């Protein structure tokens, strides 16, 4: 395991890698997980995919994210793990997916390297404002850890959290933004997309807008998840841009998941949906959810990610997100929710609603 971690850290640190390098490490991880993770082994056997037969990272069975709820996907006993991240449980009530991290070295290296490149864009430290609770308040949230890393490694000393157990600290945030505006020091505001909606509502109620200095950025992530009203993407970024005086190409969106150890970023949201790209240690495919095969070029498919930083769980996951290939990345087209039942026949989703009612 330690050798694997060292190999991964070196891999992440390299400026670029070849297809063969990626493939080789993916297959190594697959073999490791197949050997040490019994539920995963059975899952692969059920699909006739074993390390002896799989020669390309594309053939590694993609584990549906629901499996993080139903199975224990770890190569080491879960109670020996440094951290366990849990999903927010938005889709299946109180059943939460669990992602076990024996050490945080790989996750942290993945996050920091990627964040430096896409969010910091060359600056070493910047004043950060976080619209999310701290890691102490949310020890099982991967996003809370991600944001803590951002503050620790890239934040100036006056960086702060503007959301706590009492909710949004609008007053303090407005003060900070005002200061930034007056001192002409760039400010980066980051947090959950729904927190931005709450903030927009609060600022609108106060009739307040800002003109943040050049170099300022916004970073939202995670969508609205029923935690705030749903805003169409275009209107969301238009409003963010207008409220903070930040050009839409500096309004970034991060696409990440509890089930991954690596994030995707876009280069701003001048147009939506924006193209998301990942670093060299993650690769994505668009697949047919039933066959697992790649969809024909240009068609919509379900996103499957092969994340080499997922060294302890499963290297390839099958999401519930619909995507489409674009340039050297992909665009997100929403969740593959069960198609609306067309008539009086009861389909799963409606049943779930009925059962919860």
């Amino acid at each position, binding site marked *: 395991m330690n050798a694997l971690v060292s190999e991964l850290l070196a891999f992440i640190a390299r400026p670029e890698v070849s297809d063969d390098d990626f493939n080789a490490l993916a297959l190594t991880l697959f073999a490791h997980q197949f050997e040490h993770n019994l*539920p995963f082994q*059975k*899952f692969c056997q*059920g699909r*006739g995919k074993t390390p002896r037969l799989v020669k390309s990272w594309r053939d590694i069975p993609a584990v*549906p994210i*629901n*499996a993080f709820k*139903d*199975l224990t996907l770890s190569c080491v006993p879960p109670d020996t793990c440094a951290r366990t991240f849990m999903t927010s449980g938005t889709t299946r009530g109180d059943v939460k997916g669990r992602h076990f991290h024996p050490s945080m070295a790989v996750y942290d290296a993945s996050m920091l390297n990627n964040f430096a490149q896409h969010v910091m864009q060359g600056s070493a430290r910047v004043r950060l404002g976080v619209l999310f609770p701290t890691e102490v308040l949310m020890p099982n949230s991967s996003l809370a850890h991600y944001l803590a890393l951002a503050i620790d490694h890239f934040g100036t000393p006056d960086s702060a959290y503007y959301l706590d157990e009492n909710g949004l600290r609008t007053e303090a945030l407005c003060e900070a933004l005002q200061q930034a505006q007056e001192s002409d020091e760039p400010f980066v505001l980051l947090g959950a997309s729904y927190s931005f909606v709450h903030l927009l509502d609060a600022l609108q109620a106060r009739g307040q807008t800002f003109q943040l200095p050049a170099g300022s950025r916004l970073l939202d992530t995670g969508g609205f998840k029923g935690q705030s009203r749903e805003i169409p993407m275009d209107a969301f970024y238009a409003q963010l841009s207008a409220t903070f005086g930040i050009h839409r190409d500096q309004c970034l969106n991060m696409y990440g998941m509890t089930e991954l150890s690596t994030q995707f970023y876009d280069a701003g949201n001048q147009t939506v949906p924006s193209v998301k790209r990942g670093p060299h240690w993650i690769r994505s495919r668009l697949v*047919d*959810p*039933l*066959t*697992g095969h790649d969809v024909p070029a240009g068609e*919509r*498919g*379900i996103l499957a990610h092969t994340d080499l930083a997922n060294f302890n769980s499963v290297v390839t996951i099958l999401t*519930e997100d*619909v995507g489409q290939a674009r340039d050297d990345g992909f665009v997100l087209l929403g969740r*593959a*929710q*069960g*198609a*609306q*039942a*067309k*008539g*009086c*026949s*009861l*389909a*799963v*989703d*409606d*049943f779930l609603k*009925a*059962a919860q009612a």
Partner: protein
Amino acid sequence: MTAPLFKAGYLPGLNDAEVTWHRLNVGTPEAPLQVEVPLLSPSQMTALAQRVQHASRTHLKPMAVSDIVRVLDQATARLLDREDAVRQELERLLPQVTGFDAEMVRLNLHAYLHTFRGLQLQRFVAEDFANPKVLDEFQPRTQGGWTRALGPELLVHVWAGNVPALPMWSFVSGLLVKAGSIGKVASAEPVFATLLAKLLVEVEPRWADCFAVVWWPSGAAHERTAFALADVVLAYGGNTALQAMQAHVPVTTRFLPHGHKLSFGMVSACALSVRKGPGVARQAALDVARYDQQGCYSPHVFYVQRGAAVSPQDFAQHLAHELAGLQHKLPRRVLSLEEAAQVGAWREAHEFASLNDNSTALSGTDRSTSTVVYSDRPLPLTAGPLNRQVLVVAVDTLDEVLPLIAPQRDYLQTVGLAAAPGELLPLGEALGQAGATRICALGAMTSPEAGWHHDGRFSLLDLVRMVDIEASTEREAERFTPYEV
């Protein structure tokens, strides 16, 4: 290449040019079809309703029910005739618009239409009215007085698109009670009602203004306008959609919703001999394959009794085998990405369960069409993802099924039952108490008989208003004759 265009709707008294048409893209990428549906203004809708009411008062209400049945019988005969132009158009368009396999549409349509022939329709009427003449004129009551059944002046239908030709039930019911009708087609299947309306007018030209077929976007203001004009609103759809509709129905208007339903099958050990078991599985497979489980009567789960020569697990294997065979004869629709994802998620959930313990097994490695999941544990009745994904659950006795279906009481509809004669009535009693409204043989789940009580209700009786002349009126009337002494 531009996709062919089908103009939906039937709008007596309105020119195409006066109407706003909304274009829908249906069909598959290989065989695209454009459908134009009419979107009327409030004043057009009101004028149409008045026209329909007036015409049905003039031409439909004076007709005897037996004459109406005769017209419907002629129309059905034409629909059953494969040489007939309308039938051919249905066979061409329905598969295209719904995505269902052409052979499946043809076979199901045929079985379905049989229930609308004259003999069956007479029985349909007799099911609800011991004396069908009560629909024509006042009939004497045995305890004195007179009674008469009057259909609505305006019946508004909101049809669903899950099963092709579904509108025929309520369309025909409306005609049998002599109601003027305005039907709203579903975007998913605007074809059948349109063609039926035109065919009926060909057969009986006097009905030209007695009904209309329209469309509006769900929840639009058009709905409120139409509902405000109706005496009765009959609607098919999901419960959320129905709830939204209900809010638009005036309190003085009768609202007859057909919402979400859940159906399942039960197989007694009596039916599981080595000789009979595979045949029963074949019938069960047909119920699953027909319309790819999209009907309210389609089974999601089969409860199978242990203890016979063919075990529940064997039954699951037979069922999987039959479903695989049916894929050649009645291929499944091509699924959308969303549907495929839902099927995948359901299958994977059971796959994970099978990794955690040995009580669950997935039949077949074919990952593209049907799946049979076998469970040795008594799982409660839940809805599957449709599209030929089915659960077989082993039970020791059929009575054990009752607590497993109890949570779905409000949703139960059809139970496909393979059992011995002695089991029928006790099981029927228990299933009825549990909430089921229809029990039928396996293989018949998707073909309800003429005169069935859809969701436990009366198809015709629910539409009419009874008018009584009480005996006192008649008795008193005797005093007011000129020849009274």
